[in-house]
Every structure is written in structure tokens, then in C-alpha cells.
């Protein structure tokens, strides 16, 4: 019998937004260990990094995954791009590999060569993980509505699931 501790791959996905960030911790292929939204006010990037550091300390992930803000046609704000760079620096400081997934890579995982919306990805995830996510699925956004804060959770879970299903660009 092996004396070694059983090993699990655990990924931490971060999806920053204007209010704060959504996060998801996926263990193995299908076990969501934690998920949610953290709001930050004032000095958003520094506070977001502090909260991400807490998640890293608590869950000891084996990989961090974020969206690739350098890939076209990503149109995120300068603050979010700077936050992406800060998360990469944090991962490097903690000795964790970081994976960057572009918008197209995520959609390719869920729709193949077809096209789909953010809400359709959220519906797929809610169907795949009903106990965890079905009750958090927001209604479809109308043109005059701002994005529901719960969509940050689905963005983060989408990143974590997409990472499991493909081999993206990996930073050293």
C-alpha cells in the first residue's frame, strides 16, 4: 500500500468584474469545492489581490486560471488588464502555474465551432452542476439591463471547466 497522500488537481478560476470578482475552485473534473462572488470597493486591484491571496492560502490550488486579456478581441478595461497582470505576478510569487484562456478558447470548449452567448454557457454549467449552480442562474439579460452580479460565478466556473477540457496557453 502506498503511504503517499492522495493527490488531487485543484484549480482556482478568477473572473474579475467592475464590482469585484467571481471565483470557483474545482477539484478533479466535476467537484466544485467553493464558488461565489467577492465584492471590493476602493483600491479595487489591491483588495482583489489580497482576497485572491486568501483563497490561494486556504485552498492551495495547483493551478490558477484567468481570462487572457491580451488576446484579441478582448475589450476589458485598463484596470482589469492591470489586475490580470497582478494575478499572474501573484501566481509566480506563490510558485503556481497560471493558465490564460482566451474568449474564443472558452467558447470553443462549450460550442465547438459554433457560437453562443454568455448566458448559454451559464445554462450549460447550471445543467451540468445543478446542485451548485442552478439556483444562482440569473435571468437572461435584456438590452437595458446591466449584467447580473451572479454571472461572475458562471464566468469563473466556465474558466475552470474549460481548463479541464482543453490545453490552453500556459505561462511559466
Amino acid at each position: 500500500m502506498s503511504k503517499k497522500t492522495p493527490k488531487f488537481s485543484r484549480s482556482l478560476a478568477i473572473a474579475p468584474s467592475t464590482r469585484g470578482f467571481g471565483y470557483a475552485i474545482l477539484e478533479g473534473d466535476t467537484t466544485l469545492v467553493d464558488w461565489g462572488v467577492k465584492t471590493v470597493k476602493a483600491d479595487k486591484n489591491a483588495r482583489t489581490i489580497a482576497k485572491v491571496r486568501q483563497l490561494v492560502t486556504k485552498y492551495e490550488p495547483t493551478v490558477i486560471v484567468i481570462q487572457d486579456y491580451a488576446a484579441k478581441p478582448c475589450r476589458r478595461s485598463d484596470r482589469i488588464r492591470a489586475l490580470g497582470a497582478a494575478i499572474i505576478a501573484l501566481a509566480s510569487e506563490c510558485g503556481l502555474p497560471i493558465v490564460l484562456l482566451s474568449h474564443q478558447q472558452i467558447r470553443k470548449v462549450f460550442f465547438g465551432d459554433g457560437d453562443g452567448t454568455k448566458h448559454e454557457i451559464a445554462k450549460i454549467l447550471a445543467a451540468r452542476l445543478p446542485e451548485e449552480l442552478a439556483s444562482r442562474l440569473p435571468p437572461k439579460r435584456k438590452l437595458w439591463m446591466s449584467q447580473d452580479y451572479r454571472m461572475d460565478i458562471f464566468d469563473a466556473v466556465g474558466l475552470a471547466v474549460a481548463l479541464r477540457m482543453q490545453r490552453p496557453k500556459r505561462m511559466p
Partner: protein
Amino acid sequence: MASAQLSNYLRANRKRLDLTQDELAFLLGVEGAPKVCRYETFAREPSLRTLLAFEAVFQKTPSELFAGLYREIQMEVIARAKILSRRINAGKRQLHRARTSQALVRISTVQPKTGSNRP
């Protein structure tokens, strides 16, 4: 790269039931949300009564809910079983301890649980 199991999976199980920490504290019969928070952040281990209340709420065994802690304790027990087995085999009355020896072999050769925490 890989990592060990978490000490417990209470937070994930609570969120699956859409319970707040306050509501769970009420169900467990403990003081309040801060105590549940300490259990979830691995800062505190529950008493036997609370552990059994967790089992009643989540309908899962303690070894599933506290997978990492269970694994850690299991490894310690296996190591002690091997030591005890060697002591018994070295003793004079080993013939009269056949059942104990069998039990110790069973304990020290058990395959630790490595399954996921899915319901």
C-alpha cells in the same frame, strides 16, 4: 502538479443546500455563524455532537465531510497498527492473539479512500 484533499468540505455542502452560516448554526445547535465559519476555514474541529449533527444535516458520513482530516487520522492509525503488530508478533503470547493480528493486518493494508466529494 497535485494537492492533498482539503481538511473538510463543509462549505461546499452548505452551499449546495443554499443554507447560510447562521441557518446551519441553528440546525447544528451551535452558537452562531462565526463558529460555522471557523469550521469551514479549518480553524476549529467540531465536537462529537456537532459532527453527528453535520452528518444528519448533509446526509454524508464524517469521513466524506472531513475527507482530508480522515485521511490524516487514517494514516496515523495505520502507522500505529504496524507498530502494534510488530510488538504482538515479538511477544510470547502471539498464538493467542490471532484475531488481533488479523485485525491489525486488515487495518494496515486498507486502501485509503480517495474518491471525490460528489453527492
